[in-house]
């Protein structure tokens, strides 16, 4: 109960803090809109009118990953710059419980992306927003955000220790889009990539969202995404514990 309250309050706090960083919200809206437009004209040029809702939806989902990536990685460096990383680590809860609400909040900012690409698609391109399973659609979005937040936790942990890890976030945007099949179906990718896709929770979350919106059974995807997220959480938590200890040994907490 106490932990649930801690997570909820910290999530809300971080969401507030990120929303006030106007740039973060601006970027999480503008970039997906550009991608949505791009995908719209591309699919239209390829004479695939049935995929236009898919284009708007996928661009929004891509945005959720972007905000998770830069929010999770950036959050720790941001804390470092502001000098709050040390007081946070020095507070009693395990650092994973402080970090997770942050990465979850970063993923939640992605809702702005999704909402904006859908509204954009509706208003600018007149794409009808008809979702086959509205309830499952909502659930699968929540599950996907949680699974991305947990992925952010595992990534974020590395940022405690390796300052240069921040540069990694500059390269991870496109590959995760490719591997999770957020817009290009996995069947087009070389076979050896598939196992990597299968172990990534967002792959299943995205699949559930696509199925819930456009037709298909969303539930297996939701279940697998949740299961993988739980596994990731255990891993992420262990990684944070190990990394926090190493950071205390190697004195890398206060470095700017």
């Amino acid at each position: 109960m106490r932990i649930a309250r801690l997570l909820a309050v910290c999530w809300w706090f971080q969401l507030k803090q990120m929303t006030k960083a106007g740039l973060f919200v601006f970027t999480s809206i503008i970039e997906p809109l550009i991608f949505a437009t791009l995908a719209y004209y591309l699919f239209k040029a390829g004479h695939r009118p049935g995929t236009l809702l898919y284009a708007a939806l996928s661009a929004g989902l891509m945005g959720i990953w972007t905000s998770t990536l830069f929010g999770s990685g950036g959050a720790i460096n941001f804390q470092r710059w502001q000098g709050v990383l040390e007081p946070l680590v020095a507070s009693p809860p395990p650092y994973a419980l402080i970090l997770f609400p942050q990465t979850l909040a970063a993923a939640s900012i992605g809702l702005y992306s999704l909402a904006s690409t859908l509204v954009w698609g509706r208003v600018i391109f007149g794409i009808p927003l008809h979702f086959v399973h509205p309830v499952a659609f909502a659930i699968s979005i929540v599950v996907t955000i949680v699974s991305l937040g947990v992925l952010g936790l595992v990534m974020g942990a590395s940022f405690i220790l390796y300052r240069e890890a921040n540069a990694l976030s500059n390269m991870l945007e496109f590959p995760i889009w490719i591997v999770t099949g957020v817009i290009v179906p996995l069947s087009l990718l070389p076979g050896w990539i598939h196992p990597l896709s299968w172990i990534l929770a967002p792959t299943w979350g995205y699949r559930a969202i696509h199925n819930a919106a456009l037709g298909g059974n969303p539930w297996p995807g939701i279940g697998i995404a949740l299961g993988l997220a739980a596994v990731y959480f255990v891993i992420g938590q262990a990684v944070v514990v190990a990394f926090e200890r190493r950071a205390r040994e190697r004195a890398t907490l206060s470095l700017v």
Partner: protein
Amino acid sequence: MAAIEAENLRRTYKQTSGFLRRRTKTIEAVRGIDFAVDEGELFGLLGPNGAGKTTTIKMLVTLLIPTSGTARVLGSDVVDDARTVRRKIGYVFGGDRGAYERLSGLDNLRYFSELYGVPPKVQKQRIPELLELVGLTGRERERVEGYSRGMRQRLHIARGLLHDPPVIVLDEPTIGLDPVGARELRHTIAELARAGKTVLLTTHYMYEADALCDRIAVIAKGEIVATGTPAHLKSAVADRTVIEIEAYGAPEDAIRRLRDAPGVTSVAVEDREHAQLLLVQAPQGSVLTQQLLGHLDGVRVGRVTAREPTLEDAYVSLVTEN
């Protein structure tokens, strides 16, 4: 039981440089120190910049793991039982960073209350009390980015007290504050000690240590060179005289000659606006001013005075003679 105990506490840093040929250099920041702070005591860790004060503090508040040795806070080990230690300690550090800039002071305090597990009902009462204590009442809803340095510093203090910790650790809390702000802060610290808290304070301001601390440990180059009450430390140099010589452009070798002069125990140099102030310590009656000036042959010398030693002189002699 002592509130804080450090036994043979050591910490080294490894510095690597170069990418292809990596060179590792080991820096000894704290070289095996022992000290104990009693419950309810206001204890000062005094030393120049780079002496190892902050490293020591970070080991005590669990942010750094000691290379060797042990430290305990109210009986809990800072490595094995870090979570218990974190609950018992309030950690306040100097400087103007350390808060979420875009959020209000109040939001910052609420967030950290949550992290310290302060129940919501208690928060409602304590946060206004602390705001009052540190004089931020009325400004708490403004974003921290608009706070002055002093306000940020006071916000740190309020944050350190949120969970009503029995032990409070303040790392150079008055650094960068204006004189009035620093005095108010010292007043707050004294209040905390009066309320029965154990306070560990680091500073490099002598008068601060003298005015506040029950006991002081002087730390230099990673080692504790003396421990005692301010009066006790002063008594170590009580039998000395301090001769202050105002000099203009004294070269290094002249100062060295002065240092090597018979009877002289230490020479400290303070740079003033146009001149240097040479602070020569010597046992009472052992040296004649004329002899000293002889060593400064060719250097233009201004006012020369002799006086009784202060705590600052005790500190200077401890830091420079060891």
